[in-house]
């Protein structure tokens, strides 16, 4: 099958959506499919052979932060050329509501279009204003995919219609095979994520740490992620700061080893998560997981069966749950076992098969993807040159 995938965010900047697209493309290529990814990228960035650059993304303030997006006449022309040259059986657009390549492709293409909705932003003013403009483009999408039940609910509320739920994939084997690092073992708690981003929840964990250390003084907290380390421990009493080790940015291999080594992995995120790929990675590595009870997290953890949950933003509840877990090796072993069984449904072999099933369902009896001639004004009057 010839598959075209559209990535709305800059390929040079690492991010969840980009990683997902990279792994999906790798998986599909291994299955023998022909894949081309259209993504914004700087000209100097080395790209994998299957990525086609749609030009440099422009930083624009959008939705409360600065997003790097592609739009305008030049990008639209590149999208058309890619569609025309690719002769795809199906195109898969990610995040079609962001004003970038996804939306442009929706506008310019006709034929079987699959779209994955990653984020579950609350309804924004811009979205309401843009709705009449978005609708004609979005109604070309033949199949909508949401990454979680939570993301699907927001999608249905905002745009109507329905979507199937296919979770993000993880290479479970990669994490399960990683070698534990002895330095990171023995009464350790793990945290992975941006240090200076409050919604990742490190402040909540720092607030809970004194109570955890009071009950179990030998505990160490290992933090992997970018950010200001001094500022992160500022709220801790002087004597306890030594119990926190910062590992900085870690490679994929070290991330897997860290997750294999820790006694408990804690995800204290306070909101804004629509899936929680890090939890799936922790479960794959067999780490007992303790997470805040966000909708998305509760779903990944099977409502608490595959990992423990605590009340969101409640440092006391976090401390109590962490101490209970650290003191109970049997419970940790039980969580490891249930987590490893539960996580198989997130493996690429399962997720990839589901995505392919969606492709096959929409291409059944449909013509291949092509540039939509109707969008050109000249085409409407039969003036466009036919080739």
């Amino acid at each position, binding site marked *: 099958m010839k598959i075209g995938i559209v990535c709305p965010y800059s390929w040079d900047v690492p991010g969840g959506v980009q990683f997902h697209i990279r792994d999906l493309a790798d998986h599909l290529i291994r299955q023998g499919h022909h894949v081309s990814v259209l993504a914004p990228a700087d000209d100097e960035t080395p790209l994998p052979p299957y990525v086609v650059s749609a030009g440099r993304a422009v930083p624009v303030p959008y939705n409360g932060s600065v997003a790097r997006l592609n739009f305008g006449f030049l990008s639209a022309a590149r999208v058309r050329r890619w569609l025309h040259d690719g002769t795809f059986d199906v195109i898969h657009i990610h995040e079609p509501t962001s004003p970038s390549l996804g939306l442009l492709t929706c506008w310019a293409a006709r034929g079987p279009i699959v779209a994955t909705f990653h984020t579950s932003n609350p309804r924004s003013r811009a979205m309401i204003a843009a709705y009449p403009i978005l609708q004609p483009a979005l109604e070309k999408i033949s199949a909508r995919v949401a990454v979680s039940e939570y993301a699907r609910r927001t999608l249905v509320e905002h745009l109507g219609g329905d979507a199937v739920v296919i979770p993000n994939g993880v290479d479970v084997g990669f994490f399960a095979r990683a070698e534990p690092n002895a330095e990171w073992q023995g009464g350790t708690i793990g945290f992975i994520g941006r240090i200076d981003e409050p919604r990742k929840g490190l402040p909540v964990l720092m607030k809970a740490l004194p109570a955890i250390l009071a009950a179990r003084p030998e505990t160490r907290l290992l933090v992997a992620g970018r950010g200001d380390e001094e500022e992160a421990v500022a709220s801790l009493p002087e004597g306890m700061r030594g119990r926190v080790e910062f590992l900085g940015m870690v490679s994929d291999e070290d991330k897997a080893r860290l997750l294999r080594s820790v006694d408990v992995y804690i995800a204290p995120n306070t909101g804004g998560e629509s899936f929680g790929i890090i939890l799936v990675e922790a479960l794959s590595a067999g780490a007992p997981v303790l997470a805040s009870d966000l909708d998305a997290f509760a779903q990944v953890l099977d409502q608490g069966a595959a990992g423990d949950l605590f009340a969101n933003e409640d440092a006391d509840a976090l401390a109590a749950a962490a101490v209970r877990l650290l003191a109970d090796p049997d419970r940790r072993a039980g969580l490891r076992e249930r987590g490893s069984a539960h996580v198989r449904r997130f493996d690429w072999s399962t997720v990839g098969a589901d995505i392919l099933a969606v492709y096959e*369902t929409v291409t059944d009896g449909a013509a291949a993807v092509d540039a939509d001639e109707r969008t050109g004004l000249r085409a409407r009057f039969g003036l466009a040159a036919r080739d």
Partner: protein
Amino acid sequence: MIETLIWIAVALFAVGLYLSWTAGRLDRLHSRMDAARAALDAQLLRRASVTQELATSGVLDPAASIVLYESAHAARQAEEEQREVAESELSAALRAVFGETAQVEAVKEIPGGQEATRELAAAVRRVPMARRFHNDAVRAARALRTHRTVRLFRLAGHAPFPLAFEMDDEPPVALADRPGT
């Protein structure tokens, strides 16, 4: 005088352009709906065929075979008005037979059973997908068709009003080890 006429012509042209664009949208939605309906038909037929094959292959006990054969046959032969009910009954029959993991494991051990269960699992997974895509297309088409402009200018012509396909498509638990669907 001439100026007024020109303005009227421009306005009429703009309205015509808008109507032509809306008609194009509607046409595209109708063909998307037709494709989705064809895909749903194909998936339902595939599910019924796999079930019937399994029922006649002798990998199941006679009672289960009869239940599955009956409902698969009924689903394939159903008239258009009875279709949603017949397909829902097939879903219920599949759930009754493959409700237990032990039953699925037993079928897998019989020669040919492994492949049969894999095919059935794929079929029961794809029916809800195809149905969601179909009903999503129906919703989009209905939303546009109830729009004033479309009704006033009868842009939809004589195309029948789109209807959703409502059925019980819950897959058997033992065959669908997936979250959130």
